[in-house]
C-alpha cells in the first residue's frame, strides 16, 4: 500500500460516515499540511475501491452541492485489515530495539 493510499484510508476512517472526496482531501490537508490534487484523491479512491478496501454509496443531494449527491466511502473489512497491517508494519519499522527472530 502506497503512502497516498494509506493517507486516504486513514482520512476515510476519520471522516466516516461522511467520507467523500472533498472531506478526505480537507482532512489530509488539515492534519498533514499536504494539499493533494483533486485528481489524485479521485484516482486513489478509485484504486482502493477496485482493491476492495473501500465501498461507496450515494449520500443525499444537498443545495450546497447544487443538488448533486455525494459519493461516500466506507472501509470494508478487508480495507480495515489492510490498514491495520500497514500500521503494524510501520510501527515495527519505527522500533529501535534489535530485531527478534520470529520463530
Amino acid at each position: 500500500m502506497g503512502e497516498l493510499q494509506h493517507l486516504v484510508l486513514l482520512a476515510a476512517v476519520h471522516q466516516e460516515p461522511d467520507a467523500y472526496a472533498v472531506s478526505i482531501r480537507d482532512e489530509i490537508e488539515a492534519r498533514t499540511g499536504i494539499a493533494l490534487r483533486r485528481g489524485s484523491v479521485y484516482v486513489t479512491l478509485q484504486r482502493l475501491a477496485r482493491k476492495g478496501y473501500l465501498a461507496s454509496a450515494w449520500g443525499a443531494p444537498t443545495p450546497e452541492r447544487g443538488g448533486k449527491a455525494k459519493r461516500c466511502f466506507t472501509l470494508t473489512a478487508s480495507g480495515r485489515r489492510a490498514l491495520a497491517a500497514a500500521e503494524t508494519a510501520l510501527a515495527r519499522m519505527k522500533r529501535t530495539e534489535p530485531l527478534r527472530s520470529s520463530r
Partner: protein
Amino acid sequence: MRAARWLVSRVAPREWRESMTGDLEEERRRRPGMGRHAGELWALAAALGAVGELWVETLRGGTMSGGGSAIFGGLMSDVRVTVRSLCRSPRFTLPALGVLTMGIGAATAMFAIVHAIVLRPLPFDEPERLVAIGEVHHRLAAPGLSNLGSVAAPNFYDWQEALTNVHLAASTSATGFTIRDGDQPEELRALRATASLFEVLRVRPTLGRTFTTEHEVQGSDRVAVISDGFWRRQFGGDARVIGRTLHVDSGTWEVIGVLPAGFAYPFGVEQPPDLFVPYVPNETARSRTASRNYNLRVVGRLRSGASVAQLDSEIRSVTAAVARDFPEWFPDRSPGVLSLHEATVGRVRGRLFLSLGAVGFVLLIACVNLANLMLARATTRARESQIRAALGASRWRIARGVLAESVVLVLAGTAGGVVLAAWGLRALGSMLPATLPRVAAIQIDAGVLATTAVVALIVAIVAGLGPAHRASARETRLAVDAGGRSGIGRPRRTVGAVLVVAEVALAVVPLVGAGLFTASFRHVTNVDLGLDYRNVLTVSVAPRLTATGGDVQEPGLAGAQAIDDALTRLRMLPGVEAVAALSGGVPFSGSWNSSALTVGGTTFDDPDDRVQLRSVTPDYAKVIRTEVHRGRYVSEADVAGAPAVVILNEEAVRRFFGEQDPVGAVVQLRDAPRIVVGVVGDVRVRGPEQPVSPEAYIPWAQMPSASASVLIRTADDPTRLAQDVSRIVLDVAPGVPVVPSTLESLVQRMVAPRELNMLLTSLFGVLAVAIAAVGIHGVMAYTVAQQQQEIGVRIALGASPGNIMRMVLARATLLVGAGLALGGVGASVLAGSIRAFLFEIQPYDPTVFAGVGIVIVVTGLAAAWIPARWAARVDPIVAMQRS
C-alpha cells in the same frame, strides 16, 4: 461553473460525474470572494485537472466503467494486443511501415520548407503591417507585381515627407567593408540604412542602442550596429563591445549596438549583413538632377488604421504630382506597394506549392496503399474475426481492433517519417539556393509537428475505416457458414484491384511533373550561352566606398596600372591559357553597366534597349571563347589616343542596324563618338532563361577602370590556381579582399532554383512509383494466394509455368494499364497549370507522357514478377488439397 459542469458531464467517467460536479460546486461556494469570471476559470481548471488525472489512470490500464473510459480503456488494450500482433507479422508490418515512413517523411520535410518560407509570418512585431515599396517599369513588370524594383533617393524622400499612411525606412544593397584580421583582409557586408529602419521593423538591440537621424549627417555617421553573428565571431560575444572600434579600409567605426540573434533583414540574400551603418545622402540624393540612381530598398510600417490599398492610392497621387513637375523621372514607371511578406515570398511561392502538391500525391498513394495492405490483412484474419464474433464480440469491438492496428502503424510510421524528414532536411539544406528567403528558419517545429499529427490522424482514419468495416461486416462474420474464403475473397480482390488502379493513377501525376521539370532543366542547361564558361576563374577587385553613402567614389586602390601588373604576372602561371580584365560586370553575376546608344541620330534609351557596356582587354574573347563574326575584336593597338572604337554583339546589330552592316559606322556611347569595328556573337550574360541583351565592348585601354574583374582561362580545374591567383592580386593591390570564383559556379547558381525543383519533383515521383509498386505486389500476391486452387487445376490440366506467369502478368498489366489511362487523363488536366514553370517544353509533351507510361508499366511488371513466379511454382496436389 457552466463550462466545468459541461466538461465533467461529458468527459468524466460515468460513476464520477455527479459526485465530481457536486464536489466542485461545494468547493466553489466556499470561495464567496471570488468573482464570477475568476470562479468560472477556477472551476474549469479544477475540472480539467481532475478529469485529466482520471483519464491518465484509465490509459495506464484502469478498468473504470462508463463514459469515455469504456472506449478508451478498451482501445488501449487493443493497442497492446496490436503491437504484439504486428511484431509477429513482419511481412505485413514492414512494407506498411516503410510506405508510411516514406510518405509521411517526404510530406513532413516538404511542409517544413513551405511552412518556414511561405506560411510563417515574418519574424517582426505585427508583420502584417509591414510593406515593401518599389518602382516598377511598366514593360518589366511581371503579372502580380512581385518584382518591386529599387527606388531612387529623391523619390524616397518625397514619399517620406508626403505620405501619411506609412512610416518609411530605406537601405542600400550591402557593400563591402574590408577588415584586416592578421595578414588576410576579410570582406564584411555592411548595409547603409536610415535610422527609421529599426523603428519600422521594431527591432531592439540586445546591447547598446541603434543610431538615430542625428547620425545621418557626414561627420556623425561613423557608428555601426552589428549583427549577433558578427559580434560573436569578431568580438567573442564580449558584453563590453559597446564603444569599441572597427578599423576598416574606409576608416574607423564605433560599435554602438548589437542586434538580437535571429534578426534577419533583408531576406533572400546570400550573405546577411554583418553591420548596419547610417545612410548619409549626398547633395544629389534629394534633388532631381539628370542622373537617376535606383539604389534604395524601401520598407514601411502602415500607421494605425491604414491599409495597403489606402497607401497604394496615396502614393500614386503623390507620385503623380511629382511626375507633373518632373516628367522625365516617371515616363513609364510607377510606384508599387506590396505587403513585405508578399514581396519576400511571392516569387518562390508557386514553385514551392508545386512541390508540396507533388508530395501530397505521394501521401495519398501511401494512404491508399496502407488501406490496401490492411484490407488484405483483415481478410486473412477473417477466421479470427469469425471466432471472436462467435464468442460474443460486438461489431464495434472487432472494428476497434482494426482501427487500433491502423493507429499503431500510423503512429510508428509518423515517428519514422519525422526522423526521415529531419535527416532529409539536413541533407537538402546545402542544396537549397542561398537566395531562397528564410532558408535558415527551416526546421521541424511545433507547427510542423502539429500538422503532421493531424495528417497522420486523417491517414489512420481513412486507411483504417474501410478495413474496419470489412472486418466487422456481417458477411465477414458469418462467412464461415457460407463457405469461408470464397465468400470473402472475390469482393476483396475487386476492392484491392480498384485501389491498385487508384494508386497507379495517382503515381502518374507526380511522375509526369518530374518528367516535365527534368526536361525543362535539361533544356536550360543545354542553352547555348554564347561562351565557354568551363575552366574560367574569376577574381573581383571590388570598388571601395569612402565616408559618404550612396555614391561610388574613386578609392585608395592601386589603379589600372596595378591591374595591368596583375595580368602580366597571372599570364606566367603554369596552366594558364589566357587572362583578361573586364569592367562592367562579369557574365552571369547579375550586375552590369548600361548606356544609351545613339545610332544615326536616334538615341535608344529605353531600359530594354540600353546596351550593356563592358570595357575589356584584348584577350577577353580568347578567355570566354566567343566568336568574332564580322570585322575584328579589341586589339593591342586600341590604346588611349587611338581612334575610339566599339564592338557590338549581334543583338545590338539586329535592333539598331537591321540589315545594314554596322562595321565602320559611328555611334555615340556615353556622349563620345566611337567607330564600330567588329561584331561578336551573343552572350547570354543574364543567364539561360533571360533574353539576349544588346552589348557593347570598349577597349580597356580607352576606358580604364580602377575596379575590375580578372578572368583566367586554365587548361584544367581552375580552382587549383586559386591560391596563386590570390597571392598575386594581394601583392599588386594590398588590402583588397580576394574572393576567387568560377564562371561555372555563377551559372550553377542561376539554375539552382530550377535544379532544386527538378530534384524534389523527381524524388517525389520516384517515391510515388515505389509505393505504388508495393501496392501492386501486395494485390498480385493476394490474388495468387486466393487463386491457388484454380492455378493448381490449370497446371494439372497441362498449363506450363510460362502460361501461368503470363496469366498473372496479364492481370497485372490490365490493372496498371487502367491506372495509367486514368492517371494520364488526370495529369493532362493538371499539366496545363504548371506551364509557367516550364522551359521550352509543352505541358503535354508526348515524349514525357510516353516515358512515364514505360516506367509505370515496367515497374508494375517488376512488382508482379515475384507473385507470378510463386503462381508458376504452385504444386497442383497441394493446391487442391487446400480447397
